[in-house]
């Protein structure tokens, strides 16, 4: 189970929780499980946030494997100059 840190401003979509234990071997599995539990949260994360796996911002997460002890964060998207 990966540990998913729920963004502060989306916790109301996860019954106020700051962290969730979510199953899944990869990004799709994880987001699928998350979306089944909290559909609005899953949608908001996909629409507005960048996926961060074990400290690394993953720009193209679709095929990303998620480990059993992975830490997942979601951040505002970053651009650049």
């Amino acid at each position, binding site marked *: 189970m990966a540990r998913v840190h729920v963004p502060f*401003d989306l916790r109301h979509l996860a019954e106020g929780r700051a962290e969730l234990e979510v199953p899944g071997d990869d990004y799709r599995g994880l987001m699928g499980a998350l979306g089944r539990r909290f559909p609005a949260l899953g949608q908001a994360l996909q629409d507005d946030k960048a996926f*961060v796996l074990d400290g690394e911002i993953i*720009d193209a997460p679709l095929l990303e494997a998620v480990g059993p002890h992975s830490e997942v*964060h979601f951040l505002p*998207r*970053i*651009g650049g100059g």
Partner: protein
Amino acid sequence: MSEAMDFRVIGTRPVRPDGVDKVTGRASFGADFSLPGMLEGAVLRSPHAHARIKRIDVTAALGAPGVKAIVTAEDFPSVAAGAIEGGEGGGDFADLAGNVIARGKVRYHGHAVAAVAAQTRAQALAAAALIEVEYESLPPVLSLDAALADNAPLIDEALKTKGLAEPATTASNLASVIEMGGGDLAAGFAEADLVVERRYQTPTVHQGYIEPHACVGRWVQDDQAMLWCSTQGAFDVRSMTAKVLGQPVGALKVIPSEIGGGFGGKTTIYLEPLSLILSKKSGRPVRMVMSREEVFRATGPASAARLDLRMGFAKDGRITAAEVTMAYEAGAFPGSPVGPGTMCVFAPYRIANFRIKGLDVLVNKPKAAAYRAPGAPQALFATESALDEAAEKLGLDPIELRLRNAVEEGDAAIYGPKFGPIGMRACLEAAAKHPHYLRPKEAGVGRGVAVGFWFNVGLQSSAEVHINEDGTVTVIEGNPDIGGSRASMALMAAETLGVPYESVRVVVADTETAGFSNVTGGSRVTFATGMAVVEASKDIIAQCCSRAAALWSTDQEMVEWRDGAVHPRPGVNVDAQPLSLKDLAGQAGRMGGPLLGKASLNAKGAGPGFSVNLCDALVDKETGRVEVKAFTAIQDAGKAIHPSYVEGQLQGGAAQGIGWALNEEYVYSADGVMENAGFLDYRVPVASDLPMIETQIIEVPNPGHPYGVRGVGETPIVAPLAAVANAVSASAGVRLTELPLSPPRVLAGLDQA
């Protein structure tokens, strides 16, 4: 990578491959291109900051001399909402299209309303003036307060605030709200011996690249289109333009010109779709070049921002709590960089109890574009000013105060993930020992310290390495070279392949020749495209090894690559001379064909960049004028591939940051017209305004890159705002919290002291 890597060419300072073309005037920039039969374009821009377009009549203009085509929003497909990919963050295609040409409503003074193509630019301008537009003017919204007021005029009647706990039911000018938090704020403040609480403000500023936006578009009857343009990213221009025109991406070829500066401002599109539709309608190529005034009025500014900040400190300088509300002006469409701003604002420090709120607010000004470390300079101006004030009040050295709170490897960043190896502490320690910091100040001079931070990004890059038959090397990549990146790519290829720097030629190619690469921006090119060049070079090495092994009738494990040649491994009994790249290239035709290495990747592991800046400033108490007497920029580059160009990034960022701190600002009239849309009145620093800018490169290798590189382009602009403001405040003897610190504002501050 190992700590003690020995480099052969990396870290040297050769002349850049495109240098001679650029010092002799031969290099072709955006406006330097022409095609047979080419027309010249001009844009009709809104005279109102906020108005409804009732009617546009182009009849008279169409009959004017030399006119071949006129376009308005009606000539463009309506574009559905959808996020823009490519790491620029916070953009939407429908907004992008609406910014390129106004549909139904103009949202800022200078918003494009129509465009004309004619035989000469003078004819195009004259015809544009004949286009009749009937407007119903609306009250302009020009400040954060006006935008957020109850019953404020709505800039986008359909805009509902995102990020609220309860979905918004009515429209407003507040595009989104972002919140972050952790710990126990009240307990943190209760623990504090000192609380610093202030409002900090920064103005709208422009990237100020010297080359105005320019392009040439050609649309052919079979719907194949070509675009030559000055951009930070040809592939991003291609995808954005194709989307705005409703065309398949493959139908559009984008050729990037040399680019005369961008700093983030050339990561989007303005003229490109206009020139293509004008070309489609006229059947001729169309060149469009902005005037400097248009550049100011209709492109790029960086968001003005207002930060209400409160920080608590223990006596020993430890930060016990921090709270900030940061409102950024997005301009006329959503998407200020407040998101990254919220993540940067406290990023350099360990803070257990914090609360951050970010607001993205629409105003009737041009849509904000990226500007070096988007969102970070405004954010850290506030934090670093507050820390300076705390150090002063607690009687602590400002560097010591920062060291006591500095993040280190293994710490969780305030925005969540853990830091890998970072140079925050190393930069602070270097600053404390720097001759600039140790030397006595001249009388009346104030000395300011500030920290800078930027995440750095990776994103997608491709590269090809071709070995020519004489062993020389051609690298093909797709990232326009704004600041010497061809030299860095050549150095990395030469290092990897073991060949001389001079034998490598780097080509920045068009979208049909190079593999896909995201923009030159976000400090990603030396890191990510560099990584692709290194991998493509390794691909060549693997091919060389396999060919040599076959030639020597041995296994590939029995050979190795060393000093630019394949050797039998020590102890392997093969009677063979080493085979150099040149040997193998000469025989390539007989050994399976040309040597061509490729790599395409989505780079992970861009290590964050930290910096510390030192500034000495002297305030003339009679006039309020500030003189920057000395400036030092210290920054972690991971590994400096070409140190001169790294220093150049530090110095250029410092100069832009000093301009932001002291002089630069958009001045608006009450009806929303920018009053200083030229370099005479929008004053960027000139040579006589600045001292030499000392630099010190710190190298804490980034494990995410084969040679330890971190991006260096963004971080340099972050610290100068507070470094300058802290120095000016010290010299003036009064805390100044609103930029720019122009003479009238400094005098006003002195009056209150």
